[in-house]
C-alpha cells in the first residue's frame, strides 16, 4: 500500500502569541514549532497500516524551510520518504491554495490512501483534506477513528456528534481525515533518528507545481478578541486568590 500522510507544522500549543507589524499574522520568529496534533495520529495510523499490509509511507508537507524539522521527526518515527513543498506564503485564509500545491505534488505518486488531520491547530479550517480529495478525484471520509483495509476496499469508523459513530465502506484509492486519540502515538527510537538522516526528503517549490493560485478568500487582519463577558479574575498570590474565589463562590454566587 502506498500511503501519503499530510502533516503540518504549527506553533507549539503553549506559545505566547503576538500580532506582528503587518497585522496579518503572528510574530513567528521566536516561537517553537511542532507537528499538528491530529496529523501525528494520521501518521501513526499510516505507519500501522504499513506494518499490517506492507508498502510505504510518504510524508507530505507544505510550509517554510523550518518545517523540515517536523518532517525529519516523522521520518524518524518510520515514514519512508518525504515531499516538502517549500513555500513561505501559503496565505492565511484560503485552504484551496496549499491544497492545489499538494494535489499537484501527488500527481506523480498515485497513492492508494491519503491521510490528513481533521483540522489544523493554527488556521483551523477543518477542510484541507476534503478539498484535496476533490482535487485528486478520490472519495473521502472525515473525522475517522479506525481503518480496516480489505483488499481494494476499506471500512472506516467515523465519529459523529454526541457520542455517535458510523462505519462507512469505501473503495481505494481514497482520502481520510483523522481524529486525534484513536491510537497510542509512538516515539522515535535512536535508531529511527539515525536512519531518518539518510531518508529522501524531496524539496519542491511552488513554481515547480504551477505556482501559487490567486486566493479566493483574503485575510485582512488578525487581532485578539475583545472579552465581552464580565469575568472576575483574581491574580497574584495563589493563597489570596483562592481565598477570594471561595468567598465569592460562597457569598456571591452561592454555589458552595
Amino acid at each position: 500500500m502506498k500511503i501519503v500522510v499530510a502533516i503540518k507544522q504549527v506553533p507549539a500549543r503553549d506559545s505566547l502569541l503576538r500580532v506582528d507589524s503587518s497585522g496579518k499574522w503572528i510574530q513567528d520568529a521566536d516561537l517553537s514549532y511542532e507537528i499538528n496534533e491530529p496529523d501525528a495520529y494520521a501518521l501513526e495510523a499510516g505507519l500501522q497500516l504499513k506494518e499490517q499490509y506492507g508498502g510505504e509511507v510518504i510524508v507530505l508537507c507544505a510550509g517554510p524551510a523550518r518545517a523540515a524539522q517536523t518532517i525529519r521527526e516523522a521520518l524518524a518515527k518510520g515514514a519512508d520518504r518525504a515531499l516538502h513543498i517549500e513555500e513561505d506564503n501559503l496565505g492565511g485564509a484560503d485552504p484551496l491554495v496549499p491544497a492545489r500545491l499538494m494535489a499537484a505534488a501527488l500527481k506523480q505518486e498515485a497513492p492508494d490512501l491519503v491521510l490528513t488531520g481533521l483540522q489544523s491547530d493554527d488556521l483551523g479550517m477543518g477542510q484541507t483534506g476534503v478539498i484535496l480529495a476533490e482535487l485528486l478525484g478520490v472519495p473521502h471520509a472525515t473525522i475517522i477513528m479506525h481503518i480496516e483495509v480489505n483488499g481494494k476496499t476499506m471500512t472506516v469508523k467515523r465519529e459523529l456528534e454526541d457520542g455517535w459513530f458510523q462505519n462507512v465502506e469505501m473503495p481505494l484509492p481514497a482520502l481520510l481525515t483523522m481524529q486525534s486519540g484513536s491510537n497510542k502515538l509512538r516515539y522515535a527510537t535512536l535508531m529511527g533518528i539515525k536512519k531518518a538522516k539518510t531518508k529522501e526528503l524531496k524539496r519542491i517549490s511552488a513554481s515547480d507545481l504551477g505556482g501559487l493560485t490567486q486566493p479566493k478568500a483574503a485575510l485582512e487582519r488578525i487581532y485578539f478578541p475583545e472579552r465581552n463577558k464580565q469575568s472576575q479574575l483574581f491574580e497574584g498570590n495563589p493563597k489570596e486568590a483562592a481565598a477570594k474565589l471561595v468567598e465569592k463562590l460562597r457569598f456571591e454566587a452561592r454555589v458552595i
Partner: protein
Amino acid sequence: MSILVVGEQRDGTLNKMSLETVAAAQQFGAELSLPVHAALFGKGAEQAAAELAASKLDKVHVIEHELLDVYTPDAAALAVRQLVEKLGARLVLFPHTYQVRDYAPKLATAMDRVLVSDVIAHKREGDTTIFVRQLFQGKVNADVHCTGEPPFFASLQAGSFRADTREPGSAPVEKFTPSIEASQVRSKPLELFRESTRAVDLGAADIIVSVGRGIKDPENLPMIEQLAEALHAEIAASRPICDNGWLPMERQVGSSGQTVAPKMYLAVGISGAIQHLVGMKGSKIVVAINKDPEAPIFEIADYGIVGDLFQVVPALIEELKK
C-alpha cells in the same frame, strides 16, 4: 441573486443550528437586499422543512432523491450544487456541523470556490461582507473576505448567531429533484451506533471539576480528585485527557463527549476550545483556573484565577476545608 441556507436534519428532526443559520441569513439578506431561501435534504426532509418554513423566507426547498436518503458527501455535494446553480445564489450559508465539514468543502472546491469555515460573526465594510473566524483554537480572531465572483460559501459556528432573533413567517415549500447517478456515490455508509452505555451521568452532577491538559501528567490527577472531593463534585475532562487514557471516555465534556449544565463548572488547565465550550457553556457558574490570561475559557468564565494550577489548586483545597 439570493442567499441560500442549507440546513441539516436527520429522520425528520431539524438540527437546531439550522435555525441560527436562518437567523443569520435574514440579517445578511436585509443588509444586502437579497431574498433568502432555505433547503434541506435527506430522509425526513419534508417533515423537518415545516419548522424551517415558519420563518420569514422566500422559499424552502426540499431536495429529494433516493440517493440522498442516507447521507453521503458525494450525493450531498452534487445535489446542493445543482440547487445553488439553479437559484444563482450569491451567498450560501451552512451550520458548521460535522456533516457540513464533510461535504461543504467538496462542494465549494467543485465550483472552484472556497468555503469560509466556522464563522463567528460578520461585519460590513462598504459592499464587502467581512467574516470573522477564529485562529489558534479561539485565541486569535481573523477578518476574512471572499474575493472574485460569487457564489460565496460560509459555515457558521454553533451559538454565534441567535436562533431567537429569527423573524417568523410562513414560507412556501417546494420540491427540487437533482440528477444523481448511483455510480457517482462512491461510499456506502452503514448504521449509526453508540459505543458503550455511560456509567457516569455527568448531567446529574451539581458541581463538576473538569481537568485539561494543563495537568501535564496523570500522576497529578489525585490533586484534582481531592479538589472534587472538597466540593462534592464529579470529575470530568477535556478530550486530550480521555484520548490519553488518563480518565475514561465517559467523563469527556464537549461536542464529541457529554453536554453538561451544572450549577458550577470548574475548569482546571483547560484552554476553552469551542468543541469543549459547546459541552459546558450552559453551566450556571463557570470558574476557570489557567495560567494564560488570554485563554478563551476566561471569555465565558464568571470567576477565574490566573495562575499556576499546581499552586492554586492546593491553596483552593485548603481554603475549602476551612
